[in-house]
């Protein structure tokens, strides 16, 4: 299946910015089920320096600077992806929690060793006894691990309220857990902290989600969103994605941009600017659309 993504991030500043340096994770990465057909980045005003590189996690990131005065910044990315169907995963099969726990500790395959990076604390993922206590009921040592992760996903979905006004990227996890409110990124962080607190490996995934309009209605332009979910590691199977915001394992509509230990490894855009005044307005627009494959020649 072929997808076309348009992702615009636009800032307007209250005062002139003399120059700025930015870095963004806005280019989808190759994954076993997702290949990149085309990507284009348009920065307005034109970037004076720009470079695409692979980071530590093999994500692609875009580094650019604007060295002329400007009072607005627009970064628009067009991507075309070819996405394969996900293999069916039976969450009731596979190793049980205690096996996963022990394998992570003892198996010394390269993949397992590198997964251990996702068992420990990271800049945004620290946990306390409350998080562990919240996680505990989902993980019965004798039940299939994937079914337990799904159980955690479901509980976060039903216990937490989606509330875009409540948090920002720096709201601590403890606060999210206490008020049980937040956005996709918070829910992913909660799930990751829960899993790591019990000694399992979990990583943060950023990407897009295609939304479908109600039957009979036309889809609004810019209505889609950047999205975030998490991925759990099973030593024999690899990484499996779950979306606590939508109470589901990820499906066809989930398109991956980047992954890391948590949000701080893969922010869509960050940077330093000189000038710009005290306030700025931000507008983000995303369109995710299925397109017809190119006809065979």
């Amino acid at each position, binding site marked *: 299946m072929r997808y076309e993504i348009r992702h615009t991030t636009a800032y307007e500043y209250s005062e002139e910015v003399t120059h700025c*340096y930015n870095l963004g994770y806005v280019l989808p990465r190759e994954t076993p089920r997702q290949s990149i057909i085309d990507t284009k980045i348009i920065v307005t005003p034109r970037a004076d320096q720009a*470079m695409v590189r692979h980071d530590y996690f093999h994500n692609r990131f875009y580094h650019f600077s604007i060295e002329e005065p400007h009072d607005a910044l627009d970064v628009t990315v067009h991507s075309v992806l070819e996405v394969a169907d996900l293999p069916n995963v039976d969450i009731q099969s596979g190793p049980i929690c205690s096996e996963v726990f022990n394998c992570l500790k003892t198996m010394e395959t390269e993949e397992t060793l590198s997964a251990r990076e996702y068992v420990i604390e990271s800049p945004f993922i620290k946990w306390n006894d409350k998080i562990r206590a919240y996680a505990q009921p989902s993980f019965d040592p004798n039940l299939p691990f994937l079914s337990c992760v799904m159980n955690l996903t479901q509980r976060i979905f039903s216990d937490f309220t989606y509330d875009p006004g409540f948090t920002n990227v720096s709201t601590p996890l403890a606060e999210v857990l206490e008020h049980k409110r937040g956005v996709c990124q918070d829910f992913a962080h909660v799930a990751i902290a829960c899993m790591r607190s019990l000694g399992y490996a979990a990583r943060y995934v950023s990407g897009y989600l295609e939304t479908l309009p109600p039957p009979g209605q036309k889809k609004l332009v810019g209505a889609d969103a950047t999205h975030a979910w998490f991925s759990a590691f099973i030593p024999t199977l690899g990484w499996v994605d779950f979306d606590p915001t939508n109470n589901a394992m990820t499906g066809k509509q989930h398109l991956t941009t980047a992954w890391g230990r948590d949000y701080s490894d893969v922010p869509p*855009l960050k940077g*330093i600017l000189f000038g710009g005044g005290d306030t700025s307005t931000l507008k983000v627009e995303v369109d995710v659309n299925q397109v017809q494959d190119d006809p065979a020649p």
Partner: protein
Amino acid sequence: MEPAINSLNGYPNPPSHDEVYTQAGDVRPHWQYLLQSLSSLGFEAIEDRQMKASRILRDDGANYKLLDSPDAQNVWKLNPIPLLIDSEEWGLIESAIQERSELFNLILEDLYGPQTLIKHRVIPPELVLSNPSFLRPAFPFTAHDHQSLILHAIDLVRNSAGEAIVIADRTQSPSGAGYALENRVVMTRVFPSLFRESHVHRLAHFFTQLRFKLNSLNPNGGIPRVVILTPGPHNESYFEHAYLSNYLGFPLLQGKDLTVREGLVWMKSLDGLKRVDVILRRIDDVYLDPVELRGDSLIGIPGIMEVIRSGRVIVANPVGSAFLENPALYRYLPAIGKHLQGREPRLKSAQTWWCGDPNDLEYVLAHLPELFIKHCYRKPGFYSVCGPELDEHKLTAWRKRIIKRPWHYVAQECIQKSSAPTWYQGQILPRPSELRVFALAGEGEYVMMPGGLTRASLEESPKMVSSQPGLLFKDTWVIASEPEKAAPSRPSALPEDVVEIQAELSSRVAENIFWLGRYAERAEATLRYMRTLFLQFNRVEPLPERAYRTLLRGLTQLTNTQPGFLVEDEALFKNPETELFSLIKDPERVGSVASSLTLMLNAAEEVQEQMTSDTQRIINDIGDEIGYLNEQFQPGMWSAPEEALDPLVTALLALSGLVQESMLRDYAWHFMDLGRRIERTTQMSAQIRSLFVPCYFEEEEEILVEALLMTNESINTYRRRFHSTPEINKGLAMLLMDTNNPRSILYQLHEVGVHMKNLPGSDSVLPAHAKTILEATTAIQLSDLKILATKKHHDQRLILDELMARVQYLLSATSDSLTDRYFDHSQGPQMLVQNTLYQD
């Protein structure tokens, strides 16, 4: 030869291995000459040399600021007895250190590259991946054809068996090499013959090699521009940054002096941007680039990480090298050595247990009271603690902390450090010591500084030695078996114009020098005026009331400290002492002498590397004098208060004399003198307005003219020239118009104009700051002295007042225009997304 054992009479039995005595009680051969010499010198002479050393260090401004009291100026304490190491042992240490530095370089390149140490299970992944100083933004790590680790410092102690053991590695921006050099310089001055006769290996060659190495790292071709990056004067080792900058001849810059443009790093210099090729950095990894590391860092260079990745600037040591300071590596070092070098390292490290390993953790928790606990990464507020010093309560807290984040802690054996003879309160006593040595990436292999920085503790058995109170430093003498030959020839010479480009001045330095000049002049003008006031008040004849009040009001106007004496407050004029003293000694009061001097000292600190040692000495004196002001100006001291001000006036005169006589006529000098002249004009205009504009009786005006002439050192000339009592028109002739009087306004304006012609970019159209000076000069030249002095309106010389007000305005416009043109006033950086704060 008779052992020099007598010279250490009263040297108690050392608790551990001793540097001087063998277990049998014999003096080791390489100590004999020194001990004999010290003994023939006698203890009084040693004490005397010790004092001399302290004085030299103070004059050089040598200090190490303690982190917990950032304001304290802690003069470096140098002990007169060096630590001696004989050639043979040094040879062994040297080759073992070379091997270790090579190994640490390989670890760095492996962990930021293929990570075979993890993949081949040599070290557990958590040891690396849980450590906040392992920096993922350093990927992709740029490999070069030189070693990545340029400078490496290693802290060595000797255990009770006499073996050298490593207790710490410093890899991100190792400090101490400059202090070691300063120690050496002082020791050779204090003990010239002893040093000469002892056949000590010289340090200078190491710094020549360092200079050469940094130049050779240039990735961009052409003449390399190397700079030293400092966090600024508040850093505890800022003295060393400035010292190295001077010694190596590389400009000392702060993050705000540099900018990334067109994919390169540039220095903001007076005549525009200059490309920077190599940065010797003295700031921590995480502060280097707010775009990718700590977003709230104000001392870094936004965007530099991408320049580093594209290989267009070399930062030494590379970003990410802080990780090598992780003591958990010691636990695995034999295995790491085997994996990367095919052999276990020769040099032992302190025995270390890493709490991330379950067995080690168990051992540590059980033996905590005997062990030394350390963090796996450095952070302000993190200190190592010593198990034996902790009570039950604290031990429990530490156990909890360790169990919560076992990866972040190691425990090490407590090592009983060897003792070295140390001069302490008139005796030579054994004191525990440790040695920091320095390795530099050379061509092929690492080279070592033949010596190092020895630190000893005043306490008999301190648990730890670091830069804490009660700590002293020693020079380290590697004793050659025969006199050292002339310094080895320099490594292949660099192009001659290297020197030329290093003379560039950063905008920040120019600005601080300009203000150094202005504040020095402002303080001097206030001091002189005050002295005149006190002299006039204490005349035999009481002052007429109007003249008295005018003089006081003049002080308020001169110092810009309204309301002050501008209010008609009878009590205040009756008893002006409190206000006067406040204007002398209150550093919080802008405009006071103490405040101007403090601002001047701050500016001087920012440009410490531009100061000669003579200048530094005067600056130190001025700092001391500010302290005395408070003692001296206490209520009730009305007898000759002007004399208490003399030392400061003298010090300021010495400063300006030194500037005049010894400063190279480069941009720095032009800006210093511009600051001074602009300030002097401003001050004189204010004085003329205060004292000459009001019209009084002749005898009153006489007093005011005399006061102004006295303040401006022109009274004697006046008497010689005019043989008359002071009059306003003649006073004005001398102080305003006389181009031969170096204190007249016209003279200042002329000098300002000359300086401006020498500033960069002044050969084209007349710049704004030159126009304002031209206007001020012309306005004075075109005015008629007689009219200025006689034309009155409502008891005011209004024409004079207007002229002086215009001059004041034009001078302030000149200063603003210079600021716009030459100093950097770009707005500070801010984060695009406010909340991506770096956390660890």
